[in-house]
């Protein structure tokens, strides 16, 4: 058994070594793949706050991923067509500035998570899964019918957005940006898990009646976790749209929600690096198996089955053993 911290370091090392090699060897496509893995990892780290810490099985996180994507798409679309996003009651212009886009994505997806979470947390178990799924589908069908922003066809953005001091058109620079955000969010979630809030949330997942008995509000703890979770996944959505320079209703689809959850299950629920390992494996399989067969998802399904049946702690659990009580 390898201690989990060394395994985490090894996973993180992949995110530094592989792109560095690709940059040196002039393999921009590998860098794009790693960017994709980093962004998926970020989305799943977001979901893991709700799922792993809060025990909230949300099958609607594509809603936040999509909101982030459309926040980028809409702002950049108005910037490239030089039209305002809205003129009344006040004028909002489009923008190509990544920090502004990110902030918008975070705020909008947090707000959406607040509303969705507030309504969904009245239920639990299978009903919670179904109601979050229903919210996700609402956003999906809305985006399909929103013809002002391309409807089913989505929106193309001609040039990647700007970040002060960087040339984001260089794949390695955009990758560095995504990796920096992933690391910052991983740091944040590792602190979060050990914080007073994390401790209370962790207990609220296991024994909500106990949390209420000591005078804390279990539902509100879960709601705040859901909002933080949605905001992180929303930020990932904005980056994903920028990577592809394209946003479409697919980002809102329930398959997207499922994929984000699959990353976590492959890697290990509630493990800090579980979602990161899962996203990395997913992108690798998508690339290598996808090159062999169009039906590569069959193999992914088999892997998922094996992990769920034989390794409840995901890949991280299989390699590093049962989770130690962190303290």
């Amino acid at each position, binding site marked *: 058994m390898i201690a989990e911290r060394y395994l985490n370091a090894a996973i993180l090392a992949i995110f530094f070594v592989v792109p560095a090699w690709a940059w040196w060897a002039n393999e921009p496509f590998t860098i794009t793949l790693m960017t994709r893995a980093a962004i998926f990892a970020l989305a799943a780290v977001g979901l893991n706050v709700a799922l792993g810490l809060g025990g909230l099985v949300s099958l609607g996180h594509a809603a936040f991923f999509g909101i982030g994507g459309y926040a980028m798409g809409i702002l950049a679309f108005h910037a490239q067509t030089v039209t305002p996003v809205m003129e009344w009651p006040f004028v909002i212009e489009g923008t190509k500035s990544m920090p502004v886009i990110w902030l918008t994505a975070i705020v909008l997806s947090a707000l959406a998570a607040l509303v969705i979470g507030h309504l969904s947390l009245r239920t639990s178990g299978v009903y919670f899964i179904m109601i979050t799924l229903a919210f996700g589908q609402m956003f999906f069908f809305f985006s399909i019918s929103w013809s002002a922003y391309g409807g089913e066809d989505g929106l193309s953005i001609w040039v990647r957005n700007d970040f002060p001091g960087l040339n984001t058109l260089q794949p390695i620079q955009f990758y560095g940006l995504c990796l920096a955000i992933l690391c910052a969010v991983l740091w944040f979630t590792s*602190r979060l898990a*050990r914080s*007073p809030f994390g401790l209370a949330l*962790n*207990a609220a997942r*296991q024994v909500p009646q106990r949390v209420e*008995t*000591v005078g804390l509000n279990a539902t509100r703890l879960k709601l705040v976790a859901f909002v933080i979770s949605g905001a992180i996944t929303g930020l990932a959505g904005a980056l994903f749209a920028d990577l592809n320079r394209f946003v479409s209703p697919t980002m809102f689809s329930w398959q997207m929600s499922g994929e984000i959850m699959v990353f976590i299950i492959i890697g290990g629920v509630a493990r800090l690096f579980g979602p990161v390992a899962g996203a990395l494996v997913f992108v690798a399989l998508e690339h290598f198996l996808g090159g062999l067969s169009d039906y590569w998802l069959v193999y992914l399904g088999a892997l998922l089955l094996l992990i769920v049946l034989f390794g409840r702690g995901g890949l991280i659990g299989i390699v590093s053993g049962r989770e130690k009580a962190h303290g």
Partner: protein
Amino acid sequence: MADPVLATHGISKSFGALKASDDVSIDLRPGEIHAIIGPNGAGKSTLIAQICGTLMPDAGSVHLLGRDVTQQSTRARAKAGLGRTFQISALAMQDTVLQNAVLGALGASGRPWRFLSPALEDADLRARAEAALERVGLQDHAATRTAELSHGQRRQLEVAVALTLEPSVFVMDEPMAGLGSEGSKRLTGFLDELRHEAPILLVEHDMDAVFTLADRISVLVYGKVIASGSIDEIQSDRQVREAYLGEDA
């Protein structure tokens, strides 16, 4: 006589045709241990649930420190000073003993909205949690995962979590259940001292403990209080002997 710290006034609760609580009025005065006894299915747990706010009575009221709390949530009652232990341990099994105790301290502090500083490095929370663990004798198990504790140790941790709240009233639902005679004796001694900090409403099956500790006993049968009084009064009560102690009068 001092005002009661905790009181129910004629609370009733029915589940369909079953009367789980039938016009129950009991009270708890400062410094005393008031034991509730009764056969299985007498409605003891239903009574506790109504006192702690997990069940709403159909009629009657619950008063805590002189305030009517009948409409208040479990959470509000906890903040008002009600410390409860569960019959079946309700602990975060995946967490350590210390983390469970810190949760209680965190509830008492009322400040869970801190997202970056580690909870276990908070000196106040930790001191409060460790003090409670030490009082029940679990200080050597602070780093143990709760799932690995013995049954008796979990009962001790239940009490420790309630201690971290420094409540004005304890409501304990069968704290001795499943303890060996040794553990039961130790906890009895502990509760005997604890009553001077806060009075205890004690639901208990262990008659040795009840007869050692209780200042007053109320007997619950089919949701009704059929007798209430001192140990001697209860032991000599004819109805109690028939209904509960199972003797022919």
